[in-house]
């Protein structure tokens, strides 16, 4: 089934390049979105309960972006991520149980408790790390794309970053480098309206961050980041273009984070009315509505998916709480391959 035939809102333009979305794939994407939401809701709750040391930045609300983009990727493709990286990890297939354990700093974490929320990574899944440095991942994605191009693997690199990162020098350096070398990379700007507590209308000179693509003469595309299907289609075109060797695209997904910048944020910079307006456009509810209206799955089938996700994540937290802490001396390993 093609997107143009299934989109109810009319926000997705018909295209000859529409990737096929069958029932199985669409339900898989739905499940991923629900996993991200449940992961984040539980992370927030358990952070408040004192089970998660350090900082957490939650991705809830932005699920359609990670899932819409990563559904085009395989383990051979690469992504770089941000401090708000849990959703990207889940969408790229990183083990959720290992992620929960990593949030807690347990030895069973995907990074053995050495990274935590802000540095979750799994290179075997092509996930090159959440990143504590705003704009830090943009040059790294160029490098992963250079590897793909040099070795001729056909892989692409997708770089997720926020609206705040678009003001960093690395954003401009990476776009230029990717453009002149025609690297197979897609820059996905998740514009959630705020760089920490500062609105995008203040911090960014461009009304659309995608306009900045023009300076590098690469395609710049704005997409509704709350619409799974719109993201899926736009990302599909950008990724296909990169795979064809035609170079990078800047894709700006206008999205919204349901929580604050970090857990503990008082969020005085947003109005309740604004938050509710976006909650009304919940990307998961939108996907669910679409699936039901098109007879792709029944309410009961979707409920069963939801229940499965909730049970699995509940188990993940139970397991992580029971898992051993790392031995203190483990702090001394993994600095070098050899030294």
């Amino acid at each position: 089934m093609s997107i143009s035939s299934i989109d109810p809102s009319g926000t997705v333009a018909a295209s000859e390049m529409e990737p096929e979305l069958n029932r199985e794939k669409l339900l898989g994407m739905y499940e991923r979105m629900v996993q991200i939401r449940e992961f984040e809701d539980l992370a927030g709750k358990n952070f408040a309960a004192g089970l998660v040391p350090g900082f957490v930045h939650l991705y809830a609300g932005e699920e359609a972006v990670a899932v819409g983009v990563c559904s085009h990727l395989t383990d051979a493709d690469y992504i770089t991520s941000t401090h708000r990286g849990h959703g990207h990890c889940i969408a790229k297939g990183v083990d959720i149980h290992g992620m929960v354990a990593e949030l807690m700093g347990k030895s069973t974490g995907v990074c053995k408790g050495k990274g935590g929320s802000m540095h979750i990574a799994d290179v075997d899944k092509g996930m090159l790390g959440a990143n504590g440095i705003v704009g830090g991942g943009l040059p790294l994605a160029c490098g992963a794309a250079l590897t793909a191009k040099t070795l001729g693997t056909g892989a692409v690199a997708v770089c997720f970053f926020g609206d705040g990162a678009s003001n960093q020098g690395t954003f401009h350096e990476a776009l230029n480098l990717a453009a002149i070398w025609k690297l197979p990379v897609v820059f996905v700007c998740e514009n959630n309206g705020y760089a920490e507590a500062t609105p995008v209308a203040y911090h960014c000179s461009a009304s659309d961050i995608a306009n900045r693509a023009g300076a590098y003469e690469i395609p710049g595309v704005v997409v509704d980041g709350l619409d799974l299907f719109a993201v899926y289609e736009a990302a599909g075109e950008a990724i296909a273009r990169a795979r064809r060797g035609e170079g990078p695209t800047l894709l700006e997904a206008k999205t919204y984070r349901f929580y604050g910048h970090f857990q503990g944020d008082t969020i005085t910079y947003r109005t309740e009315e604004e938050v509710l307006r976006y909650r009304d456009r919940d990307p998961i509810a939108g996907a669910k509505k679409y699936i039901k209206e098109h007879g792709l799955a029944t309410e009961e089938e979707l409920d069963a998916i939801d229940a499965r996700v909730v049970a699995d994540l509940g188990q993940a937290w139970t397991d992580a709480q029971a898992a051993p802490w790392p031995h203190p001396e483990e702090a001394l390993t993994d600095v070098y391959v050899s030294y």
Partner: protein
Amino acid sequence: MVTAAPIRTLTYLQAVNEALRVTMREDPTIVLMGEDVAGGANVDHLINEDAWGGPMGVTKGLVQEFGRNRILDTPITEAGFIGAAVGAAATGLRPIAELMFVDFFGCCMDQIFDQGAKLRYMFGGKARCPLTIRTQIGAGVNAAGQHSGCHYSVFTHMPGIKTVVPSTPADAYGLLLSAIRDDDLVLFFENKVLYGSKGEVPEGTDGIPLGVADIKREGADVTIVAISRMVQQSLAAAELLADEGIEVEVVDPRTLSPLDEETILNSVAKTHHLVIVDEDNPRCGAASDIAAMVADKGFDTLDAPIKLVTAPHTPVPFSPPLEQFYIPSPEKIAETVRGIL
């Protein structure tokens, strides 16, 4: 250890060039990237020919042999291409990136320090960063405050980075072979004042292991630990002192991270006197680090206080007499040695 292979005479610059050729021939995943490492990209009459081969000519001729897909001219975009080199290293290439002058590290430090140096650790040992960053150091050519620093101490401070400071053509060759083949992030500091210096270089391709110091001159009375070009300054000081009957042992650590503590401690245990000579700035520097190590682990073997001869706590000045004052001289080194004997 370099095996007994035929010897040739090369300049330090040629030795670096030769090590790049040897490793690029043996490993097709090696790419070299940097500003004008070839020069003349996209110029019709320079398809596989360089315009410069690096601003000093260190990478001259490489594009002829390896082509422009492996010798990559970058824009002047240090954060962009050093970061890309880190990303490439984490995903299957073995890049060599040239940071033209170490003083430019401020433009790309996040990509070195927060990304490349930390990724293996933060990812629980699952990733590696087999990247060599070559860069120029050293005062002595009136290049002034932003093109003359050493700054290897900054990088030696950082976990996840190895730092290499060759002082001779043979060391430059053998250590660069090992640096490039190494699976960790290595900063390789080439002293621009030494590029023209000549020396015997073995033809073998074994490489010199990182973390093994070399005794450049044996002596019984005092140990001088000297870094990079300060090895030559200290050998000159040793000549001055030999005329006075003072036998100096010159230890070249060759790499600062890892540091061959054993060779330094053994030498001090023999001579009971230690002077450390370092062209880098003194605060939190390599010299004070080595002094602290010997004070901690070899205090009982010392007959006199450890003395440091370093650059002052200033940027590198431009004017010739100012710059010469800045660089530790053989005379100043000899005077310091006399002071503790």
